[in-house]
């Protein structure tokens, strides 16, 4: 990564502009925003996984002093449209459940909102919520996805007559006949293949819950309409959805995602039912209303993903060529009552990304998604493909073991060597060099040395192992995929506005949650105009001032948003050059000028120049004697759409030591190789990688949402939902093997979103490698000492 030259801030480890306020307690998150007179809202949530609501008695609660209003589903169902609404419904055929923000007639998971108490005091609102009595008639909960799809199962959403919310075949074309023909061809390969491995790979319910839970503060004015501060990655989508559902004309809805948000990781990307009723309450009571989610509510309702079974088969030959892949996935969707994703969009994308960066001559990939009485799946970093990546990276090792080949050699032999490439599920890999990344990893891993160490360790009865994995990750989501997937555009949009003092304001409609947009954007703008990052300020997440953006999702920053920023800067540079050439009476255009050190310099004669500020001021403030056809002002909005979907690529190696006595293991080393394209700020990129990998480790080893046989959520606090702390995780040796992206103006790639996906496979492969003397193959997560110990017992008895 290069150090800074002149005003080229690209690749500079610039400390972040965000940090000072966050380090001194001056950040402003939604729960820190005060509107005088704001009322406090507390939800009454279902105690049962599946039950009829017979009656709700709010009389005792209403007697408490300071209660403004208690809402129930029966009261609001005639006032608020039901979901789904088109703005938050993908263009994928599915059984979309009908629901309101508060449960109507029955509850479908433990923690579902049943009533809303609005009071003047937070503590009183909580007291009142406990005095709301709901009379339930329990129904049999549907908790197992395989059972859910059997004809004798109780049906959760009766109107559909099935618990299958979604199913799809991803290979063999669009018709049933072509898919059947493809399946038959794949079957034939499996019948004749010398090596076949088939197993069931299970991933548990976990995700990336952010440290800041959800919150919303709504204000209402009869003329201006609704102003909503929301913890959200998608303020523009939330705005349209609130407008549509509450029948408030769109110009009267403003959503602000504050610039300070305590992490998102996908969890703040859906359109949530709680926001609908809080906005309705503010309108109904004509008072500001605030809801701040408790951790207990958060863990009951959101951040749950990855709950999936993959029945996978790989066929290979004895030389280590992959011949065919077959996977029947079954995802446990939970109830599906969450806008934008409905749960199943994650496993849908997970199936598309299943083949990873390998060349599969043939594949048969299918997915079913079952509704159950659990919280709806919500997106979590490595959107949808944590389960399928675990399955494929684990299964690849098992095939290599059967062939008698190093798993790393088997991988390299089958990685896509020439890009661009279209995967067997029609995922487009635009550019990059997978082998360069892989070889960078292998050089650092030093496998021959490790095998010697491993042998020596074994003679001392120490079990160390090495594991590998890799991942092709989306770098932003092109409209080509985003429109059908979520009914939303993929372009990045930015407004760049110069002011007469030569300073720059940037406006973006996405809504970051800690990724350092203020700093990276300032670096790019400063590089383009030859000024300092200190002269640049960015506004994000305010629908009143920013151009439309689909949100901070899918690694859109480094791919789409920053490209729009760069293109807007270049548009303004063209105009500045035109004015300067005119004023200096030169026959010149933008390519004849250099923007550096706060000046615009004519390359043909560097005595011909202007300070950046003067020429900018001249164009904005003194719009006379202008080039023909020009107008004053320097303000540009651009929409960047890449010609093709883009990707980034990464690979992991980890080394573990396993204790035979306890099944516990320690991660001794974590080495990576990354193609992140051109880097804007290496500090920030490193931070993204560290965070993502540790999230992957924490998900693989520690975190698990557990429901009991009645569908009761047992893990709704951090005592029981165990997240990795600093002493649980290793240091990480990051290595870069970058290829600039040819489809973005700066050669950058969007990074970080999918990054956890190669972690569970690499880590489990390392544990299995350590236990190879016993032939142990682990196919189920979480990867816990007790399960490993049991495997050791089974193998050694």
């Amino acid at each position, binding site marked *: 990564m290069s150090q800074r030259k002149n005003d080229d801030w690209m690749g500079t*480890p610039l*400390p*972040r502009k*965000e*940090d*000072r306020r*966050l*380090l*001194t*307690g*001056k*950040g*402003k*998150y939604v*729960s*820190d925003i*005060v509107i005088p007179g704001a009322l406090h809202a507390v939800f009454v949530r279902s105690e049962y996984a599946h039950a009829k609501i017979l009656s709700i008695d709010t009389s005792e609660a209403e007697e408490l002093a300071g209660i403004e209003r208690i809402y129930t589903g029966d009261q609001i169902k005639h006032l608020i449209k039901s979901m789904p609404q088109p703005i938050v419904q993908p263009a994928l055929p599915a059984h979309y459940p009908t629901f309101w923000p508060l449960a109507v007639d029955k509850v479908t998971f433990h923690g579902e909102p049943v009533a809303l108490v609005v009071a003047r005091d*937070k*503590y009183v609102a909580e007291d009142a919520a406990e005095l709301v009595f709901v009379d339930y008639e329990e129904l049999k909960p549907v908790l197992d996805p395989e059972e859910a799809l059997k004809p004798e199962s109780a049906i959760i959403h009766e109107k559909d007559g099935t618990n299958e919310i979604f199913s799809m075949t991803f290979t063999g074309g669009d018709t049933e006949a072509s898919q059947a023909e493809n399946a038959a061809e794949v079957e034939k390969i499996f019948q004749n293949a010398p090596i076949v491995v088939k197993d069931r790979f299970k991933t548990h319910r976990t995700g*990336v*819950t*952010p*440290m*800041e*839970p959800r919150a919303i503060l709504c204000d209402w004015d009869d003329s201006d309409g609704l102003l909503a501060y929301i913890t959200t990655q998608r303020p523009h989508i939330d705005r349209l959805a609130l407008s549509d559902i509450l029948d408030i004309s769109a110009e009267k809805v403003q959503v602000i995602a504050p610039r*300070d*948000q*305590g*992490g998102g*990781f996908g969890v703040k990307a859906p359109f949530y039912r709680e926001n609908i009723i809080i906005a309705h309450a503010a309108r109904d009571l004509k008072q500001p209303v605030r809801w701040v989610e*408790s*951790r*207990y509510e958060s863990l009951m309702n959101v951040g749950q993903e990855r709950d999936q079974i993959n029945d996978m088969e790989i066929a290979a030959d004895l030389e280590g060529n992959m011949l065919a892949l077959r996977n029947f996935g079954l995802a446990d969707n939970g109830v599906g009552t969450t806008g934008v994703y409905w749960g199943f969009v994650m496993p849908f994308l997970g199936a598309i990304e299943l083949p990873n960066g390998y060349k599969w001559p043939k594949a048969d990939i299918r997915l079913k998604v079952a509704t159950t009485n659990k919280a709806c799946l919500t997106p979590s970093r490595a959107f949808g493909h944590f389960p399928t990546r675990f399955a494929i990276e684990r299964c690849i090792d098992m095939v290599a073991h059967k062939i008698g080949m190093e798993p790393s050699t088997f991988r390299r032999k089958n990685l896509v060597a020439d890009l661009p490439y279209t995967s067997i599920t029609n995922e487009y890999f635009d550019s990059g060099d997978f082998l360069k990344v892989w070889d960078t990893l292998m050089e650092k891993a030093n496998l021959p040395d490790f095998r010697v160490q491993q042998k020596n360790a074994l003679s001392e009865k120490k079990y160390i192992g090495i594991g590998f994995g890799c991942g092709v990750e989306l770098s932003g989501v092109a409209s080509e995929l985003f429109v059908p997937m979520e009914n939303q555009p993929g372009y990045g949009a930015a407004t760049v506005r110069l002011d007469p003092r030569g300073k720059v304001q940037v406006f973006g409609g996405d809504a970051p*949650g*800690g*990724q*350092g947009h203020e700093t990276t954007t300032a670096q790019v703008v400063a590089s383009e105009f030859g000024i300092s990052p200190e002269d640049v300020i960015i506004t994000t997440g305010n629908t009143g001032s920013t151009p439309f953006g689909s949100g901070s999702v899918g690694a859109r920053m480094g791919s789409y948003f920053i490209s729009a920023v760069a293109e807007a800067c270049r548009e303004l540079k063209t105009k500045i050059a035109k004015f300067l050439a005119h004023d200096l009476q030169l026959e010149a255009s933008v390519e004849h000028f250099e923007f550096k050190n706060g000046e615009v310099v004519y390359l043909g004669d560097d005595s011909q120049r202007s300070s950046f500020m003067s020429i900018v001021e001249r164009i904005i403030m003194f719009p006379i004697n202008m080039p023909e056809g020009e107008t004053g002002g320097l303000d540009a909005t651009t929409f960047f759409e890449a010609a093709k979907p883009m990707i980034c690529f990464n690979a992991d190696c980890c080394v573990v030591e396993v204790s035979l006595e306890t099944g516990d293991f320690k991660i001794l080393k974590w080495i990576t190789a990354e193609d992140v394209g051109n880097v804007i700020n290496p*500090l*920030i990129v*490193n*931070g993204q990688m*560290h*965070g*993502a*990998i*540790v*999230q992957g480790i924490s998900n693989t080893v520690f975190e698990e949402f557990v429901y009991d046989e009645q569908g009761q959520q047992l893990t709704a*606090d*951090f*005592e029981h939902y165990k*997240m990795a*702390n*600093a*002493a649980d*995780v290793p*240091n*990480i040796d990051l290595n870069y093997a970058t290829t600039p992206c040819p489809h973005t103006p700066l050669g950058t790639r969007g990074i970080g979103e999918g990054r956890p996906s190669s972690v569970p496979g690499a880590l489990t492969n390392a544990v299995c490698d350590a236990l190879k003397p016993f032939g142990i193959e682990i196919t189920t997560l979480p990867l816990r000492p007790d399960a490993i110990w049991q495997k050791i017992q089974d193998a050694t008895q």
Partner: protein
Amino acid sequence: MAKVAIDINGRLFQEEVPERMLLVDFIRERAHLTGTHIGCTYEGVCGACTVHLDGEAVKSCMLLAAQADEHKITTVEGLAPDGELTPLQEAFKSEHGLQCGFCTAGILMNMTDFLKRYPNPSEQEIREGLIGNLCRCTGYVHIINAVRKVVQENQSRKT
């Protein structure tokens, strides 16, 4: 109701509060110091609400405001009262020890106290000292680097 007099960052707050009011709510809602955050359900696991009670790091969600009566509290806003960042705050900036910043105040308060008690900790000791603070963004690597940087600066100043 209870009458309390709590010194927060050198300012005295004399207030009448419900007996059940948590110290973290007092800090956020009565003193209007919102740098102290709430990240778990008042179970003391996440550490985002860590403040100093008479100089010692405590979790302000585990105390009632009434228990802090007649005591001195320092919050993250009180770490750099004259606007000059402490070496630890500076190190968090230069080492990129924070992303979303939600857990950061608690980590700064904990580590400020920790470094007073253990001026020359090993990496493992720093990691163990951080067990009471959850961070979701950073993977802890840069946080450890920031704390180590301060330790190294202190050690090189001594020699």
